[in-house]
C-alpha cells in the first residue's frame, strides 16, 4: 500500500521533477548514514546511562551518610 | 480602601516634596523626543511615527516606574508593619498608572508638536493608548518590586521588564497603527479585547505574586 502510494506520488509529481535522493537510496548508501548515526546515538546513550548510574551511587552514599 | 488611598497620597506627597525624580523624567522624555525629531526630521511616515511613539513611551515608562519600589528601601520596614501587601501593591499600581498617564499626555503633546500628527488621532487612539499604558505601568510596577530586591537594579529593571511587556507592546502598537492608517473601530475591537485580557492577567498575577516578594 505504502509503495503504491509512493509510485502514485512519484508519477503524479513526475511532471515537476521534484528531486529527492532516490539514487542515493537505491545504492544502499543511506544505510551507511543510518549506521553511523546509530553508532553515535548508542554511544551517547551508553554514556548518559553510565552518568545516571554514577549519580545513583553518589545518592546512595549520601543517604548512608545523612 | 481608605488605607490604599492614604498610601497613594503618601507617594504623591513624596514626589511633590523632592521634585527631582519627576523633573528628571520630564527632561529625559523631552531629550529623547528631541533626539528622535532630529534623527527622523524629514522622512517620517505614519507607521514610523507610531512605532517611534510607542518606543518612547516604553523607555519613559521603564525609567519612570523603576523608582516606584526602589525609593522605598528605607521605609520598607515601616510599611511592612503598617499595611498588608495587597494594599501596598494596589496603591503602587494606582499611583504608577496615574503617574504614567500624566507622562504620556505630556509626551504626546511634545511629540506631536515636534514630529507632527500622522492624521487620524481619534478617540479610539486614545482609548488604546490608555489601555496600553495601564498594561505597561502595571507590568513595570511588578518588575520594579522584583528588581528592588537585587543589587544592580537599574539594569535588571530593563532586562526583566522588556520581555514581559512584549505582548502588550505588540498589541498596542499594531492597534494604534491600524487606527492611524484609518481603520474603523470595528476592526480593532477584538485586538483591543486581547490587549485588555493581557492587562487583566498581569494585574491579577501582580496581586497574587506580590505578597511573596514583599515578605522576603
Amino acid at each position, binding site marked *: 500500500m505504502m509503495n503504491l502510494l509512493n509510485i502514485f506520488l512519484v508519477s503524479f509529481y513526475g511532471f515537476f521533477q521534484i528531486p529527492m535522493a532516490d539514487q542515493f537510496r537505491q545504492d544502499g548508501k543511506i544505510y551507511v548514514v543510518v549506521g553511523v548515526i546509530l553508532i553515535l546515538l548508542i554511544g551517547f546513550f551508553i554514556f548518559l546511562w553510565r552518568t545516571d548510574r554514577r549519580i545513583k551511587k*553518589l545518592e546512595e552514599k549520601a543517604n548512608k551518610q545523612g | 480602601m481608605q488605607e490604599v488611598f492614604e498610601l497613594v497620597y503618601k507617594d504623591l506627597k513624596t514626589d511633590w516634596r523632592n521634585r527631582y525624580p519627576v523633573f528628571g523624567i520630564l527632561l529625559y522624555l523631552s531629550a529623547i523626543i528631541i533626539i528622535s525629531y532630529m534623527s527622523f526630521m524629514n522622512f517620517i511616515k505614519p507607521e514610523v511615527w507610531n512605532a517611534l511613539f510607542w518606543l518612547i513611551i516604553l523607555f519613559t515608562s521603564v525609567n519612570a516606574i523603576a523608582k516606584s519600589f526602589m525609593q522605598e528601601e528605607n521605609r520598607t520596614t515601616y510599611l511592612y508593619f503598617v499595611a498588608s501587601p495587597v494594599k501596598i501593591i494596589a496603591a503602587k499600581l494606582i499611583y504608577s498608572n496615574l503617574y504614567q498617564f500624566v507622562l504620556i499626555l505630556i509626551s504626546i503633546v511634545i511629540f506631536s508638536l515636534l514630529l507632527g500628527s500622522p492624521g487620524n488621532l481619534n478617540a479610539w487612539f486614545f482609548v488604546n493608548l490608555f489601555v496600553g499604558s495601564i498594561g505597561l505601568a502595571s507590568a513595570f510596577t511588578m518588575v520594579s518590586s522584583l528588581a528592588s*530586591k*537585587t543589587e544592580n537594579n537599574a539594569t535588571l529593571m530593563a532586562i526583566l521588564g522588556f520581555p514581559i511587556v512584549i505582548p502588550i507592546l505588540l498589541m498596542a502598537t499594531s492597534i494604534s497603527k491600524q487606527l492611524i492608517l484609518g481603520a474603523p473601530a470595528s476592526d480593532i475591537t477584538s485586538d483591543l479585547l486581547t490587549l485588555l485580557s493581557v492587562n487583566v492577567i498581569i494585574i491579577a498575577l501582580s496581586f497574587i505574586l506580590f505578597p511573596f516578594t514583599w515578605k*522576603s
Partner: protein
Amino acid sequence: MLRTEWWKWLTMALLLYVFVGGLLLPVPRLPILNETIRVLYFHVPMWFGMIALFTASCIQAIKYLSKEQLTNDIFSVQLAEVGILFGILGMISGMFWANYTWGEPWSSDPKQNMSAIALLIYFAYFVLRGSIKDEQQRAKISAVYNIFAFATLIPLLFILPRLAEDSLHPGNGGNPGFNAYDLDSQMRLVFYPAVIGWALLGFWLATIKIRYEIVSEKLGL
C-alpha cells in the same frame, strides 16, 4: 520519578526509532524542501521540548512558593537551563534550515519570535538569580519572576500568529508547499514519537542535573 528507569528506556527506544525511521521511511515529495523535510523530526521537537521544560520549570516555581522547599527551586532552575539549551539548539538549527528553504535565516515567523522572547525571559531569569546573594530570597524572587514571565508568554501564542499574516510555519497561512505535511499520516508516524522522545531526553538531562545538585548539597560540596 527521578530514579525510575522505564521512561529512560522509552526515551532511548523512541529516539533510535526516530533516527532510523526519520531517515528511511518515505516522506512526501515537496518542492524546495525535497529531502530536507526530514529535518522536521529533529528541529521542531526542540521547540516542543523547550516549551515542555519551561512549563515544568514554572510548575516547580509555583510549588516552591507554596511549600518553600529548596528542592523545588533546584528543579525549577535546572529545568529552565535544559529548556534554554533546547531553545538555543532549536533556534540555530531552525535558522540553518530556514536559510536553505525560506531563503533567509530570520523571517519574523511567530514561532521564531516566540522562542527568541522565551530565551530572553529565561536569560533574564538567570541574571536575576545571579544578582541576589541570599539563597532563600534568590529562590523566592526568581520563582515569582518565573511565574510572572511564563504567564505573559502564553498570550504570545495567540498574539504572534495573528500579527504575522504570512507565517512560514504551517497552520497559520502562507507557504502552501509546506502545508501538505500537516495532513501526511506517513510523517506523523515519526513526528509524534520524535516530539515525545526529544522532550523525554530533555527531562532526563534535567533530572541528572537536578540529582547532581541535590547530592552535592547533601555531601556539602
